[in-house]
């Protein structure tokens, strides 16, 4: 038994233990704390599975940004917790749910234990065109070139989610600014953190975006870091939360998907189809798309956490 094996067994057990905590915890806030830990441990597991790109995404979005979002919700919904305790389903439903869960788990475990042989893989196919694309990170190549249509649609999903969140605002607040945990009195420490951390964070975010071409990293991960830094500045009150009717804000939100779509449609006329890049411009086009996408992703993620408008529009 090697050290790596012991580490893997321990990590897998720990992930399951934290998952049990999330389901069993007494209060929603405690469960959310468990969820943040869960995301962090999953990031370690992804690194062990040789998927550092995913580890970065999990650390940034899965644990960090989602954790912040759920924490807000848990603290706002705290008054409702004791009331819903009486709505716990009976023993019968518990047993049925447990049996169902065990069956599903057993089925998945069987799939894992009886692997297909040889294991299916698209890695060789992905490797063939990497030199042409001049993108050395295969995951970025898949996201930006081979399966670019998935990435484009995912941006649309992000935008739709934001529109959905905004439409839940009461009419009188339409066009106003999101609430985002307004603090009654700003602490000196928080202000200090919000002044010191974002400059470093922005450099790291841009670095993660830039390194995405040759090593794990890319638009999502960089965008999530930028979003977290923006949120930090707004939480500390150093910059106001923007009102959602602002033209510049809406421009930033759509510029990424819009450029991506334009390049995609241009593919009809220049090369040979939707979302195919002209051979000599592949690398520059991918870089341009990634840069604007990062900007849009950062803005959308930040505003999704900030929630629907909760203040009236200022004239």
């Amino acid at each position, binding site marked *: 038994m090697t050290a790596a094996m012991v580490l893997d067994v321990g990590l897998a057990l720990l992930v*399951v233990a934290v998952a049990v905590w999330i389901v069993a915890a007494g209060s929603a806030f405690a469960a959310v704390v468990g969820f943040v830990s869960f995301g962090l441990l999953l990031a370690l597991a992804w690194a*062990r599975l*040789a998927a550092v*790109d995913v580890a970065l995404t999990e650390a940034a979005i899965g644990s960090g940004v989602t954790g912040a979002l759920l924490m807000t919700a848990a603290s706002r919904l705290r008054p409702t917790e004791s009331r*819903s305790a009486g709505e716990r389903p009976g023993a019968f439903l518990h047993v049925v749910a447990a049996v*169902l869960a065990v069956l599903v788990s057993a089925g998945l475990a069987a799939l894992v234990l009886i692997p297909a042989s040889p294991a*299916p893989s698209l890695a060789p196919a992905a490797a063939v065109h990497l030199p042409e694309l001049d993108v050395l990170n295969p995951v970025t190549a898949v996201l930006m070139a081979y399966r670019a249509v998935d990435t484009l649609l995912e941006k649309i*999903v992000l935008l739709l*989610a934001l529109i959905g969140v905004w439409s839940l605002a009461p009419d009188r607040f339409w066009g106003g600014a999101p609430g985002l945990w307004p603090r009654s009195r700003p602490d000196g420490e928080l202000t200090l953190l919000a002044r010191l951390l974002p400059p470093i964070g922005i450099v790291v975010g841009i670095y993660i975006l830039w390194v995405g071409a040759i090593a794990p990293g890319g638009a999502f991960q960089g965008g999530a870091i930028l979003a977290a830094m923006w949120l930090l500045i707004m939480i500390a009150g150093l910059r106001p939360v923007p009102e959602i009717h602002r033209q510049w804000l809406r421009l930033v939100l759509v510029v990424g998907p819009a450029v991506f779509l334009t390049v995609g449609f241009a593919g009809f006329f220049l090369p040979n189809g939707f979302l195919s890049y002209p051979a000599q411009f592949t690398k520059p086009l991918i870089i341009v798309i990634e840069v604007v996408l990062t900007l849009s992703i950062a803005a959308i993620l930040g505003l999704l956490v900030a929630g629907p408008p909760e203040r009236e529009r200022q004239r």
Partner: protein
Amino acid sequence: MNAATLYGLCSAALVGLGLFGAIVHPQPLRKILAFNLLGGGVFLQFGVIARRGAAAGMGGDPVPQAMVITGIVVAFSATALAVTLLLRLYQVSGSATLSIETQSSSESDGGGR
């Protein structure tokens, strides 16, 4: 047993736990959490498939990995929308429950339908 199989079993357990939590928890927020747990398990399953497909000098098959990255982002958008819906429900009805009895009683408190 290699690392991929181990994490595969771990992901199977996560899916089961998430499913159980999503069914039995009365609070919608806990259901959302459990659903994210379930999603995490499914993503990990993709990771295992990717790891087993290691070839051509890559540590894993990049296609499932890229799909997981897309999946994580989409899961976040869905969570954000669900949480906002829930908060709005609480704002409007004064309760955050999916139970029909409690829902209708709080509606009649507020002046009926």
